[in-house]
């Protein structure tokens, strides 16, 4: 028997979530992640962009005991199970911060801002955080 979510549910749109803030200082990163998880229920074409300080959301080794906040970075590793596999990270933003792909806790596609811009142009909906 097919599961309800395997049935055809109409047109698929392209949704891009653009993440530009480091985690913890503001609520943007966590809010974005929660909306992304919810959006997974709607079977849409979802992609995540990490640019500017947003690349720090994916930084390995986040330890939040000292600031008394929940470390939500392990949740990015759950995205694959939610069939969200398009994670794009700006090469420039990594380099400006002395980071490389090895510093990130999930598999991503590192690309230039102009490549990301072209993907952005191609979206039905862009959600900005």
């Amino acid at each position: 028997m097919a599961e309800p979510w395997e049935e055809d549910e109409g047109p698929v749109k392209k949704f891009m979530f653009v993440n530009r803030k480091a985690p913890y200082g503001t609520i943007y990163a966590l809010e974005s992640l929660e909306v992304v998880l919810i959006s997974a229920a709607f079977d849409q074409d979802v992609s995540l962009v990490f640019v500017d300080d947003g690349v720090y959301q994916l930084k390995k080794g986040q330890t939040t005991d000292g600031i008394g906040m929940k470390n939500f970075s392990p949740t990015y590793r759950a995205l694959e199970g939610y069939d969200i596999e398009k994670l794009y990270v700006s090469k420039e933003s990594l380099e400006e911060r002395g980071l490389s792909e090895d510093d990130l806790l999930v598999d991503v596609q590192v690309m230039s801002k102009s490549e990301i811009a072209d993907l952005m142009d191609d979206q039905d909906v862009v959600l900005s955080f």
Partner: protein
Amino acid sequence: MTMLHTVNKSPFERNALDSCMSMANKGSKILLIEDAVVGAVDKNTHAEKIKGAMSDYTFYVLGPDLQARGIDEGNVIDGVNVVDYAGYVDLVAETDNVQSWL
């Protein structure tokens, strides 16, 4: 596809405008709203960035936000279009999607 990019932070405080211009494709529209309108003032130290990018983008600034901050429309950089809220809505309606540089 044409995109509208909105920026709402002052260039004196944040890099939102720089980030926007480092990523927006040519032909995009860029609308300055809220505190970002201070960047639209001619002769401010960030004005050259906008002037230098006029061939790549069309710039807009939200009039009510200029007025709220006591900025005379006559002091806005030549070529930056002042729009009201209805004009903002038109920009959103005539572009394919919107990215907000917060």
